[in-house]
Structures are given as C-alpha cells and as structure tokens.
C-alpha cells in the first residue's frame, strides 16, 4: 500500500509534521443490498491513521451508502468493518459516535432551533457524565462539565473563525456558514475519524478554499483522520493522500491521486470510452 503523503498544495502548512500511521479502519468485502438493488458490491479498502482519504465516483456509485455503512445507518449483508484492530459488531449510529467516529452530511443536518454554540456543544454530549439529578440541581459535575466543555468548544469556534455568530440561531445562517458550523460540531467530538459527505457541495470558489484550508488544518493540527466524499476533482486531487474510486457499487480504483488519475477504468467511468 502506498503510504506517502499525496501532492501538497501551497496552502498546506508544515507538511513535514504530518505522519501517516497504521491502518485505523478497514472495510472487508462489504456488500450492501436494498431488496434487489446492489448498492455496494464486495468492496474492501482501508483508512490509515492521520491520512485524508477520498471516496469519489459518479452519482449513484454508492459513496454515501459506504459512509452510511461506516456510521452505522446501514448494516451490510456481507463483509466486516474493522476499527482499531477489532471487528466491529453491528451497532446503532449513536454507538458508532461513541467509538469516536463523527460525520457531516451532504444536506446539512444541524439543529435549527438552537444557537451555534449549543449546536457545537451537542458534539460533546458523549463526554458528558452528569446524571439527570445533578443537572436538575445544577450541582456537582453538571456545572463543572458545562464550563470545561465550553472552553474546548470556544477553541473550535476560534479555530473555524465563527466567533461572531456564536449566539445566533443556526436557522438564520447562510449556507456556507452552516457547513462550517456542522464541521465544528463534528470536531467538537474530538473524533478519531471524521467523515465528510460532500463538504464543499454548493459552495462558491472562496468558500471552497476556506473549507479546504479548514480540512487541511484539522488534519494537520489535530492529526484527525479524514474520509471525505467530494465531486470537485481539483479539490480531491489536492487534498487527499489516497483515493478510492467507486462506480455502480464496485471499486474501480484505489491509490494516490496520481495513480488514480492515470487509471484507465477511472477515466472510462468519468469521461466515458468510445466503443467503435
């Protein structure tokens, strides 16, 4: 397997410090069917610690289904998910979250009725230990935890440069900022793996550049492993260390951006081939 970092963009800070470690998550022969429709057919790939792993493919290739398998929404009919050297039993999404896997959604899934701050604080719910009675009386761990986690959340708010909208209800924010808040919420969980489902969909060039910068910074400063789905080829090729290419539920390519780019099957899926 190829472990060296992919081509770095000039935006990447201090790339000497990045280190790609051993395999963190491994998908083994995953097959997912919905009735007669095969969404994912016998796919295997791995995600190494500290890398940015992209999953690409045309519409309907099964990329989001793959992410949903990882985060526990779908349970594959065949195949195994290995995480940190252990085979993962089928589990509910909230149990997956507690293992340290956070994600964002293609169409933003924030809590519209809550402020930005509260939304990001929800990212830390898995670490809250205070019981209902302690919370009711605002006593003991309840008050302490609130302050301690607020401090962590404020760091993320600074990091993603959203200080000014801290107390704004999320429903009032523009699209680009919502995407950023969703990233903040995922980061607040201090995940081992961060799954990003089309983090740049529907953004303009500037917003995309901002988002790229944040993704690289997250990977670089926190050492977070990132798996992302993205359609913008420029972004994928620049950001990722390794790329999985899917088409019609099959894996047709896997490797560094350069290898993938020159893979004839990938070119065929994206550009089509002449049959004459």
């Amino acid at each position, binding site marked *: 397997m190829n472990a060296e970092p992919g081509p770095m963009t000039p935006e990447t800070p201090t790339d000497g410090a990045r280190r790609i470690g051993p395999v963190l998550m491994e998908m083994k022969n995953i097959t997912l069917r919905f009735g007669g429709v095969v969404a994912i057919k016998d796919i295997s790939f791995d995600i190494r610690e500290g890398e940015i792993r992209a999953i690409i493919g045309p519409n309907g290739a099964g990329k989001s289904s793959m992410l949903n398998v990882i*985060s526990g*929404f779908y349970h594959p009919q065949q195949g195994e998910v290995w995480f940190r050297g252990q085979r993962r039993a089928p589990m*509910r*999404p*909230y149990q*997956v*979250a*507690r293992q340290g896997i*956070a*994600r964002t*959604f293609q169409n933003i*899934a*924030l*809590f*519209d*009725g*809550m402020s930005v701050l*509260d939304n990001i*604080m*929800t*990212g830390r*719910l*898995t670490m*809250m230990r*205070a019981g*209902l009675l302690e*919370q*009711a*009386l*605002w006593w003991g761990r*309840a*008050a302490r*935890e*609130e*302050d301690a986690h*607020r*401090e962590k959340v*404020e760091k993320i708010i600074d990091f993603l440069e959203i200080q000014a909208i801290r107390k704004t209800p999320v429903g009032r924010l523009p699209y680009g900022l919502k995407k950023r808040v969703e990233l903040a*919420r*995922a980061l607040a*969980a201090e995940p081992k793996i961060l799954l990003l489902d089309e983090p740049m969909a529907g953004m303009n060039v500037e917003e995309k550049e901002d988002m790229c910068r944040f993704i690289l910074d997250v990977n670089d400063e926190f050492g977070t492993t990132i798996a992302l789905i993205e359609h913008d080829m420029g972004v994928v090729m620049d950001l990722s260390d390794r790329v999985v290419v899917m088409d019609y539920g099959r894996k047709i390519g896997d490797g560094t951006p350069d290898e993938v780019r020159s893979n004839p099957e990938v070119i065929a899926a994206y550009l089509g081939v002449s049959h004459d």
Partner: protein
Amino acid sequence: MLYREAGDFKTSYRDDAQTFPIRFDRRGYYALLAVAAAVVPFVINDYWANAVFVPFLIYAIAALGLNILTGYCGQVSLGTGGFMAVGAYAMYKLMTAFPEVSVLIHVLLAGGITAAVGVLFGLPSLRIKGFYLAVATLAAQFFLVWLFNKVPWFYNYSASGQITAPERTVLGWYVTGPQTTAATKYLICLGFVFLLAWIARNLTRGTAGRRWMAIRDMDIAAEIIGVNPLTTKLSAFAVSSFFIGVAGALFFSVYLGAAEVGEAFGINKSFLVLFMVIIGGLGSIFGSFAGAAFLVLLPVFLKNVLGGVLGWPTDLAAHIELMIVGALIVGFLIAEPHGLAQLWRLAKEKLRLWPFPH
C-alpha cells in the same frame, strides 16, 4: 436606556451562560420574586387565590412539564389530563395510606409515580412520531380516566366515586381541606413553582436540554453525534410527567379539594395545557408561564368586563366569553405563531436599541 448589555462585561463562561445575562432582567426577576413571596400573600383574598393565582401557578407547572416534552423534545402529547389524574390519584392514595408523612413529600412522590407511568406510555414514541404519537398519548388519556373510574381501589371504594383530600398541615398551617387560607394555598403552590421552574431551567440549558432539542430538531443528526434516542425520549417523558404529576397532585389536593376524574382531568385539560404551551411558546420556560397566565387570566378578565362592567346577563356573558377566547387564540396564532415568548424576545431586542435604533 436601562436595558443594555454595554458595559456589563462577562469574564467567565459561567457569567456568560447565566439565565438573565442583562442586569435589568436580573433585577426585574428578583423584584418579581420578592413581590410574589413577600407582598402578595398579605393582600391575597379567597377570590384572587381561587380564581387567579392558584390555578395560574398550578397550570404553569403543568405547562412547564408539557413544554419539556413537546416544546423541547418535540414529542406531541395529548395525555396531560390523564397524567395529571395519575398525580392526583397517587396523591390521594398516599395521603390516605400514610397520613403521618408530610404532604410535601407526598406531592413529590406523586410526581415520581406519574413519571414512571409517563415512561410506560412514552415507549411508543420510539417507534412513532408526530400525529401518530399524539393519537397514542390520546389513548393514554382515555385509558387512565377509564381506569380511575372503573377500579374502586383508586378512590378507596367511596360511594360517590370521588376523591376528597383529607386535612393536612405543613408546619402547623393547613394546606389541604376546608380550613386552608388563601395565603397558604398560594404560598405552597408558589414554592413548588419556584423549585420546578428552576429545575426546568437547569435541565433545559444543559446537557439534557441539548439532547432533547437535538432529538426535536433532527433525530437522525442527533443519533449520529451520539444521542441515544431511547433514553433521551424516555427521560423527556419522565421529567415531563413528573412536572405534570406534581401539578395534578396540587390541583386535586390544594386547589379542588375533591375531584371526580372525568370532570377534573378529562381531555379538556389536555387541550387546555397544550394550548397554553402553544400560545406561550414552544421550547420556552417563560412561554409556559405566559401561556398559563393568558389562558387563566383571560376568562376571568372577560367575565369581569362582560358581567361586571357591561352588566350583561351571566349566561350570555359566559357564552360570549368562550367565543372571544377562541377567536383571540386563533387571531393570536395567526399574528405570532411562535407564541408570547417570541413576542417577548422581539420586544427585548427592540428595547436593547431603544431609543436610538440606528
């Protein structure tokens, strides 16, 4: 002019997250508490206690409870009347079975029993949502009323089928029974309201509240960040039912004195409390109080104006009153679907800029 954040700097996260971050609000709140605790008990009479203050306070508790379930956790419930009945009958059984124990403990225990029943009827919420859940809780309403009617054990085999609160004292003052004064009725309700509103605020501003609101706003996203839908929904049912149970216990023992389940805790009660929550504002502590005040005070106010000031015959006034209340609710919801709490928020935002809005 007075209503300003400027110059009031917060230096800790705890200061920043307090309930009333603006000094003027804080002082207003303490002033209100002082008046409620130290002035009102001395001027209150039977009419004001029975027509206004005691029902307002008790309904405020019930509205807080339903608001936690419906406003914060997004689970619609039409079983409020039934759960209030559970609180009332639990209170009755406890009062008659353990006369030596303080009624204050009985009220809390009645709340606890209602919480357990609420969790039981909350189980379907794991599978069904929205209107369908409303129908399921409606079944709870009818079942509970039927149960308390049909099983004589619950009303201690009394001939009338009614439950009557025996006389009990707290610190030598009668709090239940005919000898209770207006001031003690008012004060005991005020005490519970203060305690429970504080608890509701603590729960909703912290971890539990965030879990509930996450489930309300988007349950899939809530699950992906690690919120267990099962325990979260059931905890909302438990806390909500606890509040409603306490309200039911006080409603029966302190306010009514004697109750018949179909009359006191019928489906009308469920709707009344639901209207309070909707008119007051879903997902707001203030809204629970505002909604309770609106629906308790408005009929009293109209009765006095129509019957007293305008001198209309009582039967006509009574019917017109219902029509006006109904029309006001409809008109009000068209004008401000998010309830009185939203009006209050808007007013406060305007006030912060007043008198120089630019």
